[in-house]
């Protein structure tokens, strides 16, 4: 599932650690979400969407697969 978490975070001027702290998860988890290695739970996905003032559907695109780095 491709997502726009990295792009949204960069626009907001946040580091992965800062975003993780705001959402109660680790920096590694934010990195894993951004690279598509980890698909977050529904509560965390909603939390991310709310944090960036967008919707889950816009933040996560289920029709596109992220290439793992």
């Amino acid at each position, binding site marked *: 599932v491709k997502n726009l978490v990295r792009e949204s975070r960069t626009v907001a001027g946040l580091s992965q650690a800062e975003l993780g702290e705001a959402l109660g998860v*680790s920096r590694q988890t934010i990195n894993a979400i951004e690279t598509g290695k980890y698909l977050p739970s529904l509560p*965390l996905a909603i939390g991310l969407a709310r944090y960036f003032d967008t919707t889950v559907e816009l933040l996560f695109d289920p029709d596109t697969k992220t290439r793992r780095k």
Partner: protein
Amino acid sequence: MMHVHQQRSRLYVPLGVLAGGLGLSACVLAGGVVGAAQGIALAGVVGAVLIYALSGRGGDVGAVLSADRDERQAQLDIRARAITSVVLLAVCGVIAAREFLQGGRAQPYFDLCLLAIATYLTALFWLKRRT
């Protein structure tokens, strides 16, 4: 600076290992095998110290070992436990098969395999009801 909760949660796993090691050591000591009891107690202490030291590091391994983990780290822990269980079951199965082929009773390995299968099926039905 580490929070008090994190400091406390860092102790859970090492204390569990220490208690397990010392408990097993006491049982072995009660059986009269002093050397083995000392070895098990030492292994428990060393294991507890090692895990405590590792849990103080940042990153996923430290978080999982400190029992202060987020959802992804909890998944890592569950998967690691599953792999450990499968490996242990496979080892027990191989040893049991080898002992059966040699005409032995394959104890306690065969019983451990049966216990693992029974536990898995019980857990499966129990979890199925909950989710």
